[in-house]
Structure formats: C-alpha cells, structure tokens
C-alpha cells in the first residue's frame, strides 16, 4: 500500500463566507475521508501517540476499528477513557500531544488523530448515543465544584464507577469555559450540550446557579458528601494596568466572549444581553482566547481587527491552526507592540490606543525572549473597541472562603500528583490547580483525581 504523505484535509467554510456567520468553521470528515485517514495509521506496536494523550486513549485501537469500518465500536473505545470526545476532537492541541509523537509525523504529516476522534464522535451523535451498563451503586457521594472540562471528566468517571455524583455550577448553564469561553464557530454549543447530557445520563446530577463559597460553603458540602473535587478554573481576567483601561469600550476577553457565547449577544435583541460591536477593534494578546476574541469581533461586523502582541510571531501562544484561521479571515497582526495608554473621547468612550514597539532581549524565566520597549517608537492607532486577552488567573472565590486550603503564590490550589489538596477529602484539578492551561490538561487532572477519589472511597486511604 502506498504511503500517503499528507493528512486528509478537512473541509472548512470559506473565509469570505464564514466571517459573516457563527457556524462552525471546520466541517468534519465524511466516512470516506475518515477511512482514508485511518488507513494512514501504521498501528505501531509501541503506540508512541498514547504517551502524548493526557487521558491515555487507546489511539491505534480506535483507529483500527475505524479502518475496519466499525465506527460504533471506535467511539466506544475512545469513551473508555474520554467522556467528551466531541469537545476534545475539536479543541485539543493535537500537534503538541498525540500527533506530536506519531511515527508518520517523523517523515510526513502525522495521522489526523483529532479529526478521526471528532468524526466518530459526530457519527455517534447522529446515530444516537449508547450508554455503558449501569454500575452497582457504591452508596458514596461526591460533590464536584464547577462543570468545566475538569469537573465533567471527574464526574463522569466517578459515576461510571457507581458513585453518586453532584456537580455544582455557579452559572446558569453547565460547561464552564466550554460554554462561556470558546466560541460557537470553533465549538458549537450543541456539541457541549450533547456531551453534558451524556454525563447526566451516566447518572450525574448538575445543579446550576449554585456559587460554592456563597450559596453554600465548602464546609456545608463536606458535611453531606464523602469527597469533593474543586474544578473552578481560571476565571479571573487579567488587565494591563495602563491608563484608560476602564473607559467604555474596553472589555476583558472573558466579558466579551461570555456576552457573545453564553448570553448569545450576537443574537441581540432576540436575546436580551447586548454587546458592543466595534468598527476598529484591537485585541491585546496572542493566545487562543485572543484569536477567539478577534474572530468573534469580525463576525459581529468589525471592519478592522488587530491582534496586538508584545513578542514576535514565533512566541505567540495560540495554536497554529487558530493563527492561520485568524489570518485567513483578515485579522491584522501588530507584533512586537505593546499598548501604553488608552485615550477616550468626551463621552468617556475609547478613541485611541498609544502603543510602543518592542524588541526581544534575553530569555526570561518562561524561556521566551523578554520584550524590551524601544524608546521613542510610540505610535497611535484609532480604535473604538479594545479586548484584553492577556490571560486569566485562578478563580479566587474558593481559596478565599475556605479555611485551611493551601494555595500557591499564584493563587492556585496546592495539590499533589493525584489532585489531593491540603484539606482532608478535598481534591482539586484543572486551571484552579495549574493556572490557565488547556481543556484536555484539565480533563487529565479530573481523571487522575477521579481515580484517586475512587481509591479513597474504596479503601479509606
């Protein structure tokens, strides 16, 4: 059989079309395309790809089943390890994980593992989701705080083991960052709802509108539950700390995206929540959240959208795919540039942003070259909307309100490799323990904590 060097392309909406709608950009494989891509897998005995997967999916195993046309069995193989395949198939940075270790990738393009995962997940959704056999109830109760990727994964795994699991979510819809943060055109909310429903069907109860630390305290939960997992994420937006940052027309990426994604402001006034649609928009930062914000601003009708980033293209933290998508859609990149002041008009509305050019110096503690301002290089750009996407810090609500819970100097909850915190019967994982990271890393943490919670509930240790 001849070797196909390149990944089977996935159809996408045309950039000219898609900047006018919120529909998904990537359209997924057809069965023929999936079969063709699955055929590229060499079925390596040592399966190096698996070591790149934070939740240890049997990758050659599920691809073999696709090869054999057994799509139904392929998705079950994935679900042995991953309860949210429709989500991970879309938002995992596979190029840094499974696909990075793919043998094919050494000489050619790696196998499109993520695309295949997405294909079988969508296949199952279309055909109707199968549930695993009901486990024998253990009589143990676990409370999960937060319904993002970490919480959903931990909950799903524990429910499959027969524990009675309740998730407490502070917002009105479950999903955490999957609902409020990642835009519809990258992760349709219908997919999130389907996968949340799957977790519910496993027996997990989800209580929305409950802010743990306010509506009920962690101590109250400890009275009623045998174990607690905290997965409250990195919800606290960071700001630049420059003059003019509180002018009207300056958003945190969290606010901008929450208004559009969770509250559906792109359908205002059918939905009641408004969002400001800028004509000339500057997004500060170059991570995935920045790309999401820039592309959302375009879809809301912006004429010009800039990404303003203090380092060079090489250091941009966003996935290549997202950067490419943003470029295709016409986002302009102002690199080696940092804002120093925002000025407003007489109505307290953003009018201009003063920036300074940067050069790269010696590497800093993150290993990336430190940006240094170039004196006298200031310039101004006219903007009417600014979105600040320079990262999020851990949600402080629980660390602040729970006595005896040890935290780090970054505000994250201190945990061991199994997610155990300094408090008895309390585990934590995901961004609240690591600082802002990826969906799949949070899922991996949820999974490890679930295994350890199970061990504790079984043995008392």
């Amino acid at each position, binding site marked *: 059989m001849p070797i196909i060097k390149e990944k089977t392309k996935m159809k996408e909406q045309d950039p000219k079309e898609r900047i006018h709608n919120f529909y998904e950009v990537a359209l997924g494989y057809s069965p023929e395309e999936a079969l063709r891509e699955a055929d590229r897998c060499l079925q390596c005995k040592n399966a190096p790809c698996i070591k790149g997967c934070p939740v240890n999916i049997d990758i050659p195993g599920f691809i073999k089943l696709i090869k054999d046309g057994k799509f139904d069995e392929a998705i079950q193989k994935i679900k042995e390890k991953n309860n949210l395949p429709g989500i991970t198939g879309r938002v995992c940075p596979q190029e840094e994980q499974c696909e990075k270790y793919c043998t094919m990738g050494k000489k050619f393009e790696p196998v499109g593992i993520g695309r295949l995962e997405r294909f079988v997940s969508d296949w199952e959704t279309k055909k109707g989701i199968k549930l695993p056999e009901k486990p024998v109830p253990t009589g143990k109760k676990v409370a999960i705080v937060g319904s993002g990727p970490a919480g959903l994964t931990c909950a799903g795994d524990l429910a499959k083991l027969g524990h009675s699991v*309740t998730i407490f979510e*502070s*917002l*009105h819809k479950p999903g955490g960052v999957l609902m*409020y943060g990642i835009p519809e055109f990258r992760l349709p909310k219908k997919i999130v709802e389907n996968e949340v429903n799957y977790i519910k069907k496993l027996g997990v109860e989800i*209580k*929305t*509108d*409950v*802010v743990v630390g*306010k*509506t*009920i*305290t962690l101590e*109250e*939960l400890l009275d*009623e539950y045998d174990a607690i997992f905290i997965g409250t994420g990195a*919800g*606290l*937006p960071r*700001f630049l*700390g420059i003059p003019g*940052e*509180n002018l*009207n027309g300056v*958003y*945190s990426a*969290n*606010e901008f995206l*929450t*208004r559009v994604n969770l*509250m*559906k402001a792109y359908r*205002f*006034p*059918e*939905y*009641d*929540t*408004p969002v*400001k649609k800028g004509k000339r928009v500057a997004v500060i930062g170059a991570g995935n959240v920045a790309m999401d914000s820039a592309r959302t601003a375009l879809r809301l009708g912006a004429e010009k959208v800039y990404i303003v980033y203090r380092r060079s293209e090489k250091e941009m933290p966003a996935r290549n795919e997202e950067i490419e998508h943003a470029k295709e859609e016409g986002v302009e990149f102002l690199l080696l540039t940092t804002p120093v002041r925002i000025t407003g008009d007489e*109505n*307290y509305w953003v009018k201009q942003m003063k920036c300074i050019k940067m050069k790269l110096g010696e590497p800093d503690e993150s290993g990336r070259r430190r940006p240094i301002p170039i004196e006298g290089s200031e310039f101004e750009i006219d903007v009417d909307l600014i979105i600040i996407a320079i990262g999020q810090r851990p*949600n*402080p*609500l629980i660390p602040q309100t729970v006595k005896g819970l040890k935290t780090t100097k970054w505000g994250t909850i201190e945990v061991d490799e199994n997610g155990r915190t300094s408090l008895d019967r309390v585990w934590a994982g995901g961004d609240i323990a690591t600082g802002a990271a990826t969906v799949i890393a949070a899922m991996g943490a949820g999974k490890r904590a679930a295994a350890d919670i199970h061990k504790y509930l079984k043995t008392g240790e």
Partner: protein
Amino acid sequence: MERSIVSDGDKMYRITHKEELCETVKLFDIEAPLIAKNFKPGQFLIVRIDETGERIPLTIVDTDRINGTVRIIFQEVGKTTKKLGMLKPGDTLQDVTGPLGKPAEIEKFGKVVCVGGGVGVAPLYPQAKAFKEAGNEVISILGARRKELIILEDEIRKVSDRVYITTNDGSYGRKGFVSDVLRELLEKEKFDRVVTIGPAVMMMAVAMVTKPHNVKTIASLNAIMVDGTGMCGACRVTVGGETKFTCVDGPDFDAHLVDFRELMERQKMYISEEIRATEAYKEELESALLSVYSLLKQKKG
C-alpha cells in the same frame, strides 16, 4: 426531618408574593431557600427571567428562612425589569443566583446615618436593621423624586431612632435632596459612620458632604454586571486609584475613594441598546394586545 442542603436547590424560583409599591416599583417574594439561608445585609442576587434573558443584579430587602424566600424590590427601567414586573405570584424565574458580593461591615460604631435614595432604600433597609440590632443609634434619611416613590418608610421607621424624608418636588417631607439634610445634620452633630445607597449621583453628593467632616462613608455601588462572580470585569470601578470588581470586592466601598464619574459613565454604556430593546418590547406587547383585541372583536362579530 432534616432537610438536605442539596434538595433545597431543586426548588423552582417561584414568586410567592407580589406588591406594587407604586406604578413602577414592585416587590416580590421568591422561593430561593439556599439564598435565604446564607444572605447577609449588603449582598445581592442575580436574576435571569427566561431562556433568552439577560442576567441582572437585584438587591435583597429581606429573607424568610422558614419559608425559604427572599424579598426583592426593583424599579422598572428597561425591558428586563418591565418584563419582570409583569410576572405574577405562581410564576417562576429561570435563574436566581446568590447571595453575591461581600456582606456589609456591621459593627457597633455609635451613631450611624443611613442615606437612601429611590429604590436604593430597599437594600439600605437590611443594613439599617442590622446596625440597629448591633446597638447603634440609627438616623435614616430617605429621598425620592416625589412622594409615591418613597418606599419602605414604615420599615425604616421601625429600625431608626430618627427619620428624615426629602422629595425633589416637595410633595412629601422636605423639598430638596438627602444631601441637604445630611449637610445640616453634620453641622450640628457628630456621626461615626454614614452608609449611602441610591443613584450614583446621589452617593457622590453624600460623599462630598461628609468628606470635610471626615466621617467614614460607605457607598453600595450599582455597576453593570454579567456573571456577578468576578469572572468578567464588567463591573470594574476605580477605588483609591485601584481597579476593583463591584461584584466580588464590593458592592460596598469607601465613598471618599470611589471614582463616581467613571461609575456613572460606565452605567451609560448600553443606553442605546437598552432603548432599542425596550422599544422592541413595547411593540411586541402592543401587537400582542392588538391580536387579542381583534380576536375578541371576531368572537363578538
């Protein structure tokens, strides 16, 4: 039987009681047992009426822990509050979240002045009550544009040693502003703390009046919010040169340090959208009325 904290969460947020305090100001009791249980004066809640609704912060006036209800008072301003005002006892709300924000600092300070304007008197009431219970001498100053907009007067009287009332048009109490009364009182008496809740412009005036007398003054800010849990920063406000989030760092702040100009400008951010939504809602209501009317006409015919 001991009730599980979890099963309490299963309740629908049902409206059990409604009062019309005046044409545009309504009072609701809503079933929300967990919020009723953990509420402390100074805290607020967030309401979403239905699936397409926005999240709006509303103030809590009182709670009934036995029946598991919270009492809210709100003024109909835009579409969401108008829509809320049309609901009846027995109707349910999609979402009620709380109690949010930091509780007010309630201690025995000595002589405390509570200054409330308009519906700001609603969240002021539980604070005045708590100050009284903590052993303070409580002096309350209530203000509104006109007589019918003065709310909770009887309740405030019960927990205050003295009450002053002002209306802009002089239709009740003294003609003028709450800050006028406060200024005069400050010239004659010494106070240990002033707490003010109402429109931003009123709280700013109160802060300006108390500043020269060096009386610690606390304002409860009413910024625009989305999640109410510190996640978005919509409600950020400058206090003493630092950016704070009203929802988690407040809503109470030292009024002498608050940048009220910024707060007022930020409150205006969505005025054009508010007008658009309210107009569309009015049209929706009118066309609904018209179709009912034509149906009735057809039946008669």
